[in-house]
């Protein structure tokens, strides 16, 4: 069932850079995520960890370098059913009520043909995803009546409903209660057994700590550390319920003041600015 290539990276970024209004947000990013790996992207607020993940999903345009998903360059990539994405943000609600089941069912969209009703297997996958995050009893309820942590679980179930090979989560546990975090860790473990690859942006790892086999620490738009999880990165924030500058222990004391970074140098092809 699973068709991960035996070799070749699931996500690969070469010399990736992102500019927002002339300011470099990411630069010199080289990253390869292998099949079955669990990568946690850590870093302080504004370090570019979220931008890194969003650029690999094609949500933020890169101004340099190349991104490949499952070996295919991003602009030509079309196999979106292999990806399950959980955006940052905890708003599952909108102007019109939507039930938990409906929101989760939209996770099957990349596998669904327009104008045709959902197949039985698809409906079963939706129910399974809802069960995996422990919300079976609330499937018919409107998402806006759920707590913040439960809403986040709905968004995770939506990503799981497509049974993806690559699961990309942007701060899935931010502001989520302990029970929801543990349910989520459980659901993630089940997907790992399936052989899925996981990329996870986090401020604190919490119960996910033991699942992670590699961490990337971002600082000022660059990868500052890439390797096995270190206690300093994963435990520092444990007791802190909110954002805190002491979290970034990798930053030396001398770099304690807000930094001013230079714009990216123009390269041959995109040298029109300045």
């Amino acid at each position: 069932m699973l068709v991960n290539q035996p070799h070749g990276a699931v996500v690969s970024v070469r010399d990736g850079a992102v500019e927002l209004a002339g300011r470099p947000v990411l630069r010199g990013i080289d990253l390869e995520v292998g099949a079955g790996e669990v990568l946690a992207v850590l870093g302080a607020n504004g370090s570019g960890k979220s931008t890194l993940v969003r650029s690999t999903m094609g949500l933020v345009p890169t101004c340099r370098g190349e991104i490949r998903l499952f070996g295919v360059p991003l602009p030509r990539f079309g196999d979106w059913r292999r990806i399950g994405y959980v955006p940052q943000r905890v708003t599952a609600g909108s102007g019109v009520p939507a039930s938990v089941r409906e929101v989760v069912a939209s996770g099957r969209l990349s596998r669904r043909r327009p104008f045709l009703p959902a197949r039985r297997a698809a409906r079963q996958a939706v129910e399974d995803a809802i069960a995996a995050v422990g919300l079976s009893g609330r499937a018919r309820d409107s998402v806006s009546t759920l707590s913040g942590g439960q809403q986040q679980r709905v968004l995770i179930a939506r990503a799981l409903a497509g049974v993806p090979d690559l699961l990309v989560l942007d701060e899935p546990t931010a502001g989520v209660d302990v029970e929801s975090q543990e349910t989520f860790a459980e659901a993630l473990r089940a997907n790992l057994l399936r052989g899925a690859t996981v990329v996870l942006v986090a401020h604190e790892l919490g119960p996910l700590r033991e699942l992670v086999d590699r961490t990337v620490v971002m600082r000022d738009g660059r990868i500052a550390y890439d390797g096995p999880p270190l206690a300093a990165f994963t435990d520092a924030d444990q007791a802190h319920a909110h954002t805190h500058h002491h979290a970034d222990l990798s930053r030396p004391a001398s770099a304690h003041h807000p930094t001013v970074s230079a714009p990216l140098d123009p390269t041959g092809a995109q040298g029109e600015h300045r």
Partner: protein
Amino acid sequence: MSLLTYDFVVRALAGALFTGLAAPAVGTYLVQRRLALMGDGVGHIAVTGVALGLLTGTSPTLTAVAVAIVGAVVIELVRADGRTSGDVALALLFYGGIAGGVLLTGLAGQSAATLNTYLFGSITTISGADVWVTIGLAVVVVTLAVGLAPQLFAVAQDQEFARVAGLDVRVYNLLVSVMAAVTVTVAMRTVGLLLVSALMVVPVATAQQVTRAFRTTLAAAMAIGMAASLGGVAVSAYVDAAPGATIVLLALAGFAAAYPLGAWTRRRQRLARPFTEPQPEGVPVGLGHEHTAVPEEHAHEHGRECGHPAVPHGDHVDYVHDGHRHAPHGSHYDEH
């Protein structure tokens, strides 16, 4: 029932039936993406379209459809561009549409009364051909709104997720805009351009008082819209009132009736909501081992008014205070 023997009544009812179905179907997606006033904006632009038809001697319905589609696409492009906020874009088109319409109608040598039949509807003067055009366009709009419901729902619910699911978000957004423009011109003869938006939004607002899911909201809104339209035409035939206004007032009466019911269910849901997890005991909240809390007492909270120099530092502001820098952290201050 003797009214049904009059052809114009039958045509009016048929027109109302399909308008009442199509308007809330599109309206649901507009309300979902919090663009409830978009129907109004498009309606105003369509005024210019009608006037263009009067001026050039072509069918005002055709020119209204064309101009409304152009206007709706412009609204969507301006909104998607993100540099002008959606409501400002709408406001600009409101004024331009009405002013252009009045100007062109004057140039065409038509009276305000002619324009009025489009502004407030004239369902009883609707012709047989008009009814068929209305039915045709309404069927197309309802088919798209119901058939593409999962896709349109996902795009309006969470654009980023929809993009990563491989949906062409821009195409679906433009589709909703074009559907809104077509619906506005379809409903022009029934409730009039100035009241179209009411038929798109009020049934949805009424339905969501009592519904919990998107599909049921969509279905209920279409049922309510249809009932209000048919009821409005029937009532206005008996009491000789303006049909467009009667339809809208009936829909609003429905909302007024549903609101207390909605308030009661919302209250029950709030009571059923779980309490948040209590913090585990033993660990003082927010105090980790890496922490350098300042032991001294603070007579005041640092802030704009306290007089201590403020130093912006990353995501927070430090205060230079008595020879050292303090960073506010929850209930206390950290040393820098």
